[in-house]
């Protein structure tokens, strides 16, 4: 039995906060999440105002700059694509209560892996895209998987806290890629590699503009398809496969899972590798679909951290992640031009805090009870 928290009187009534005994109606969690976001936006607006900006202008700008017309909507999708994959990566790890904060580093390593195919070069520039792109995708996933494997193994074998190990690996990944950019693959001494040949670029909608004129200028690329396919596949794995059942069981109660004969250590390593692979795919998609060269700044743009928030907001559901990623893509796209410049990150932080706090409403209910005259026996 858990304690109910009573608050002091208000004209003979008492506010009681007590644990819920049954599940809230289906729409309730979504409503609470929406409410949390609304609250966060209001709070964010206040902070913008304190820092000297104009909140209404800022938000209106965000809305217009991301959904105003098809061109910017396409840009929003482009921004959302890496977020989708990063969030999927986080979601599968979080299901097992593995706090993968290293999606950022795994993303970057994925970009590195894909770039290595082009820049070493492992495949010559004339290679057909039909070969190039799958090979780069696999290289990206492999590199990301390795980067996820390391903390997974450390956790399984030595019980090393994965939050810190994955985080440290983020910094190491950035340094690693920087070395290759500055020291090996630099183009004319600039902070970036040579531009990738067009055979490595992910096809875009605008590539078909000659046959379908509407598509002119739309930069949405194949990465979106990769993200959607990955989301659907992940949904099936988590909710309909044996492995997914085991992951969910471990995440909810590792001791029960152990009793059921599930190998926790092995799953720790596998899930972290899978998580890394998904993030790595995101890195590959970004570097071959948008940036077209290996360059640190646009890769280390915080997709890994945004992925964490998106995964949490979507309650780890792969299909919802697609929608939420688009929302956040908008935020990032339009937020770039907002003054002060830290606004998108701050709003992300406030959203996450509101969401976590709002979870409380799902587990507890607020009741008004008439003070002390309650004689009806409850059952």
């Amino acid at each position, binding site marked *: 039995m858990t304690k109910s928290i009573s608050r002091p009187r208000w004209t003979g009534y008492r506010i009681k906060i007590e644990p819920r*005994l049954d*599940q809230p109606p289906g729409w309730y969690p979504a409503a609470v999440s929406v409410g949390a976001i609304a609250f966060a936006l209001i709070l964010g607006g206040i902070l913008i105002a304190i820092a000297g900006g104009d909140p209404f202008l800022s938000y209106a700008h965000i809305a217009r700059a991301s959904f105003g017309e098809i061109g910017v909507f396409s840009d929003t999708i482009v921004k959302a694509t890496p977020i989708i994959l990063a969030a999927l990566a986080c979601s599968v790890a979080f299901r097992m209560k593995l706090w993968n904060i290293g999606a950022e580093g795994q993303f970057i390593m994925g970009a590195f892996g894909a770039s290595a195919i082009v820049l070493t070069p492992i495949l010559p520039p004339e290679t057909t895209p039909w070969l190039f792109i799958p090979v780069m995708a696999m290289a990206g996933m492999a590199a990301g998987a390795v980067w996820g494997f390391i903390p997974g193994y450390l956790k399984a074998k030595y019980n090393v806290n994965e939050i810190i190990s994955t985080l440290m690996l983020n910094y190491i990944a950035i340094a690693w890629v920087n070395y290759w950019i500055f020291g090996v693959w630099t183009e004319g001494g600039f902070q970036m590699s040579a531009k990738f040949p067009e055979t490595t670029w992910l096809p875009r909608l605008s590539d078909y503009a000659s046959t379908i004129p509407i598509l002119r200028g739309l930069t949405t690329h194949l990465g979106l398809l990769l993200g959607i396919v990955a989301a659907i596949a992940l949904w099936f794995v988590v909710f*309909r496969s044996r492995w997914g059942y085991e992951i969910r069981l471990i995440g909810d109660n590792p001791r029960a899972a152990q009793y059921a004969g599930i190998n926790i250590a092995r799953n720790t390593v596998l899930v972290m590798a899978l998580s890394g692979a998904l993030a790595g795919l995101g890195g590959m998609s970004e570097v071959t679909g948008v940036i077209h060269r290996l360059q640190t700044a646009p890769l280390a743009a915080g997709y890994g951290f945004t992925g964490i928030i998106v995964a949490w907001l979507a309650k780890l559901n792969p299909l919802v992640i697609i929608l939420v990623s688009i929302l956040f893509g908008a935020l990032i796209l339009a937020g770039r031009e907002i003054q002060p410049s830290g606004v998108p990150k701050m709003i992300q932080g406030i959203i996450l805090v509101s969401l976590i706090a709002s979870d409380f409403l799902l587990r507890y209910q607020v009741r008004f009870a008439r003070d002390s005259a309650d004689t009806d026996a409850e059952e």
Partner: protein
Amino acid sequence: MTATLNTTSETMPPMVEMRGIVKRFPGVLANDHVDFELRAGEIHGLLGENGAGKSTLMNVLAGLYKQDAGTIKVNGNPVIFSSPRDAIKAGIGMVHQHFMLVPSQTVTENVLLGLDEPRFFMRLSEYDSRIAELGRKFGLSVDPRAKIWQLSVGEQQRVELLKMLYRGANVLIMDEPTAVLAPQEIEGLFNTLRSMVAQGKSVIFISHKLNEVAAIADRVTVLRRGKGTASGVPSRGVTRQELAQLMVGREVVFFVAKKPCKPGDVVLDVKAIHAENDKGLPALRGLSLNVRAGEIVGVAGVAGNGQNELSQVITGLRKCRQGEVMLNGDKVSNRDTLFGIQHGMAYIPEDRTHVGSAPNLSVTDNVIMKNYRKSPISKGGMLDMPAATKFANELKQAYDIIVPTVNTPVRLLSGGNLQRVILAREISGQPNFMVAVQPTRGLDVGAIEGVHRLLLAQREAGAAVLLISEELEELLSLSDRVYVIYEGKIMGEIQVGGAEPNEGLVEVVGLMMTGTPLEQIRKEGVAA
């Protein structure tokens, strides 16, 4: 008839007076206008089955909970306790069923916890001697410098008492104090309580064990489902049957009828296993036992003598350093739990929520925990959800699990229902061997009877059942044979016939539970 009570005066105001106490928790009315009265210098028994509201009532008195309605008076003065500190200041101290001791700290540190002195710096050695002195005065000797995790359970209980006495408590509330003691230690506790009363203290003794309350208490108050059914009745004035009726409200059968035992081959063979506990200390030292098909074998013992480790080694959750466990001739020790599951082993763990189930997953997810790898629940790596749901619904029917739908997360289920889910899962696999650890802990009488029926049904179906329990009465009435475990070894094995448990049997078992091997008992001539 009036019972004569030697030390109390009936003209003084009662030491503690609780009137009309109401305490609600979400979904449950734990105390429904309960009255309770404690006279100075008496031992007052508070009797009731699990969930009747006894602990709740005393938690209110001890300041841990605030009542929703009702008044409390101490020595005639009305009091309002907003925290345990207030209660302690008023001289009321509680020794909880689950000890509130910090394992990694010493006795002295635990006793001093929460006090206003020492002001800032601590010179512990002064306090060590003061506490040792207090222990001597009340016959509760214990080494003040020992760390709690190093002490035996009985010694830890003494520390709890010392904590309260040090704070000048005059009223001592003991919540199920005998749950962790062997029969001989219980007598020791009773003597301690009597001597404390002789030195001017008053004791409230909470228990669900009729016999003990009848033996120790001067007066008895009985609670049933949150209501008081008898208040302050002199214990010499009622019979056991009457008390039982007041507790449960209907004819209580103290004894379970079962068909005679026709045991088959040995199913489980535990051969001289040695294993360590989580701290690395030896927990099982060369323990051997066996269970045959069609019988229930009980393992009796005071908590903490290796029972947990034994069940864990058998189910594969813990490694054993020496020896082996054979299940139907296959070695099952030091292999992963999957092997045991695939060879027909079922496990009802002691901890329903933290080991036996996944709280946030649905009933369906929980019941397929053992068979999800096989068809029809899964085909080729993918789960067949409609099949799983159908299976869950079948179990819901068959085992009377009360739940809105099988998609409900199991954390919302009551203890009894949760145990039914676990039993349904384990039994539906038609195991040939089952380990059940404390299967009826915390359940009300109806649920307990249900569990007993299921265990007996398994026995009838030819399964081998190993029942590890701290409830001696349950063990003696259900088992065909009983082993007694003490400090990781078997002290002896007793045939328990179809007869009602008699005093002699209990005494022998009690002696074994406190460390006397069976041969020694027989040599010394105590008849079994």
